[in-house]
């Protein structure tokens, strides 16, 4: 893999002094300070980070690398020792020359205790195990243990740690404290207060990350209850992240509630398509039905969050009106066709189109590979091309004003005009004057963008590929059913130039096929150019031809993508 100067590497941080500590007898060197999860300012490295660096798991509930440290769950208690110092401020040595370690008489929480040089951390002593067992016993005192009806079951930290570190039975004979269940916190969240273990992750997230101080704890002692500010719904655009953050099943998503048990869900790495940020997500699907998006960690795009707008924007994938048949229309009569017979017809019709009489409109919601193949087709016809800009209000965290997931890709492939959408008027004018006789539309309803039904009726040939039926597909001579992003593979380039790939989670409906597949079928007959067979090959070929993507390969994209200059 060749590296190219154009691929941006994150700026190398200023060298930080390293500290050597020992975790369970193994030495590890960690920086003295690490960037804070929320502010990014350097703060002293903690014991839990040192343990994480050497892949020693310390169980924890309230600690989250992206949230301020609260230190209230006590689950990460560990034992530690520091080098003994003599009166001359020099370490006292053992007879064998090693530093003498003074073991601390009390344990410390690993999430909030900074490390010091020579420190030794013990995460697996009998005392530590006994403390974990004790903490879990306390946490379970008032827990309702309603795992059979709890949506978190299967991805619940309380379940996992109880199995790993807890006791098999409870010694608590008294009646449990009951708290409100099914509390409606806002339009997207339902709270079960009984299950809450009061880690305050949700409170810290909405206060310190989102900046909407909406949640808090009321009442005292075992009556502690999480609640939203009275009379104010918890409805900011990031509220559903608290459901992911909640280590137990206290906060549940109204959208996903009682839909499917999580252990049935197949997890596929994908991308959110609702705006130009391109948040990394995991698609949860079962038997070709998609159930949910969950954010996936990517520090250079979305940290570990995603917005509710994007998270809930997936229902269209299972819209019963999806285009699932190839349709060919001659005059007024539309007939259902199939790929085998429609493609040669379409190729023949396209082949007879004269250069200069064709226009191509490709959506910035298509993958970069699709846009690249469309651009190849357009170049053959010297066609006027464009994409449709789509904007909406942006917010302070992730939601971008550009609501197309692949605007940058449309620009890279040369399919979008500069500025995007400025050629749409020219195309409308070309059709009106009779100069443009063939229009190829992918993924857009052009009747809503200045090319009305009256203009479309004048065309000799209108080819439309889409996922859902619209006014353009109703008029098209060839309707080619395409795939939603969860039904195919491809890449998007986000607004900052982050090239990312997404994988296929479910099978396409009916006759629908990935756009790349049928474009690849069409291109050799129409243009004489044959695309590489595999998607990987196509991406690599594309990266070689597009200056901005020089040196990027499919393999190099990995799970988190590559940043290029735009």
């Amino acid at each position, binding site marked *: 893999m060749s590296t190219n100067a154009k691929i941006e590497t994150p700026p190398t941080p200023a060298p930080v002094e390293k500290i050597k500590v020992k975790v369970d007898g193994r030495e590890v060197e960690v920086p003295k300070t690490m960037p804070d999860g929320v502010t990014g300012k350097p703060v002293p490295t903690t014991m839990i980070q040192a343990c994480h660096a050497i892949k020693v798991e310390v169980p924890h509930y309230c600690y989250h690398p992206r949230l301020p440290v609260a230190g209230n769950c006590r689950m990460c208690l560990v034992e530690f020792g520091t080098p003994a110092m003599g009166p001359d401020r020099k370490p006292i040595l053992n007879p064998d020359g090693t530093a003498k370690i003074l073991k601390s008489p009390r344990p410390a929480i690993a999430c909030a205790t900074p490390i010091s040089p020579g420190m030794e951390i013990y995460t697996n002593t009998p005392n530590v195990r006994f403390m974990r067992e004790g903490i879990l016993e306390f946490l379970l005192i008032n827990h*309702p243990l309603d*795992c*059979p*009806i709890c949506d978190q*079951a299967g991805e619940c930290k309380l379940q996992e740690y109880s199995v790993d570190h807890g006791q098999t039975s409870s010694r608590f004979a008294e*009646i*449990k*404290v*009951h*708290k*409100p*269940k*099914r509390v409606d916190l806002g339009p997207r969240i339902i709270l079960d207060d009984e299950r809450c273990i009061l880690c305050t992750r949700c409170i810290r997230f909405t206060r310190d990350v989102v900046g909407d101080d909406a949640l808090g704890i009321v009442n005292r002692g075992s009556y502690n209850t999480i609640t939203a500010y009275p009379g104010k719904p918890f409805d900011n655009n990031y509220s559903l992240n608290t459901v992911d953050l909640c280590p137990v099943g206290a906060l549940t998503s*109204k*959208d*996903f*509630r*009682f*839909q*499917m*048990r999580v*252990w*049935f869900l197949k997890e596929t790495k994908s991308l959110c398509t609702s705006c130009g940020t391109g948040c990394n997500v995991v698609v949860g699907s079962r038997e070709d039905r998609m159930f949910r998006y969950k954010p996936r960690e990517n520090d250079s795009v979305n940290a570990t969050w995603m917005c509710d707008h994007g998270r809930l924007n997936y229902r269209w994938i299972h819209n019963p009106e999806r285009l699932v048949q190839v349709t060919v229309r001659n005059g007024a009569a539309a007939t259902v066709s199939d790929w085998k017979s429609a493609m040669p017809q379409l190729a023949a019709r396209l082949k007879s189109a004269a250069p200069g009489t064709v226009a191509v409109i490709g959506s910035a919601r298509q993958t970069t590979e699709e846009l690249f193949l469309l651009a190849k087709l357009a170049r053959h016809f010297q066609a006027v091309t464009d994409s449709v800009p789509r904007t909406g209000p942006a917010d302070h965290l992730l939601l971008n004003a550009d609501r197309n997931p692949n605007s940058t890709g449309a620009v890279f492939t040369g399919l979008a005009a500069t500025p995007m959408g400025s050629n749409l008027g020219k195309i409308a004018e070309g059709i009106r004057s009779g100069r443009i006789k063939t229009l190829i539309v992918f993924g857009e309803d052009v009747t809503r963008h200045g090319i009305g039904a009256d203009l479309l009726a004048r065309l000799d040939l209108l080819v439309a590929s889409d996922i859902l039926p619209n006014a353009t597909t109703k008029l098209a001579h060839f309707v080619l059913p395409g795939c939603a992003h969860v039904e195919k593979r491809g890449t998007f380039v986000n607004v900052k130039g982050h090239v990312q790939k997404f994988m296929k989670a479910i099978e396409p409906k009916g006759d629908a096929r990935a756009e790349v597949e049928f474009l690849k079928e069409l291109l050799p007959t129409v243009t004489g150019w044959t695309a590489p067979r595999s998607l990987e090959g196509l991406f690599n070929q594309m990266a070689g031809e597009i200056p901005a993507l020089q040196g990027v390969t499919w393999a190099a994209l990995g799970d988190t993508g590559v940043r290029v200059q735009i």
Partner: protein
Amino acid sequence: MIVNRKKLNFLERLYVPAVIGGFKITIRHFFKKKVTMQYPEEKWVVPEGYRGAPYLVKDQQGRTKCVSCQLCEFVCPPKAIQITPPGPGGLPEAGNVEKGPREFEINMLRCIFCGLCQEVCPEEAIFLMKDYSLNGKSREELIHNKEKLLAMGGVHNDKIQKWKTKADEARQQGL
């Protein structure tokens, strides 16, 4: 390995001693206790612990005990069980349990009577009963739905009644 086949001697070739031996056994059985059961006029008494067809049960309050946790669906080796969870609204008739199956199907053409569903059930809602004679005129008939499973399962007299206890405790605490 070569097995030498011994040639039959004269007496053996006659077959008469063998036929007589056969008759001896037959006649002996005339005077033995009869073991053949006159099925279907006479029905077999199923022993304790027999694993027959799995059915769903209701509790004393008439609530379907199944809470749609889908563990049986998960554990079922031939994938005979298919549960439709209730969705975001839950099941209103389930009360404080919130959840129950919207649909519960057991494909008896697939079921292997292993009893893992009963063993895994955290709610004691599914039991392998003593039905062994399962038949139907179509494949559809042998896919038991929730209604049929509940009708055949009847009421299970639960000693613990954890959900009722929870509701009572919450009521006592003023919730």
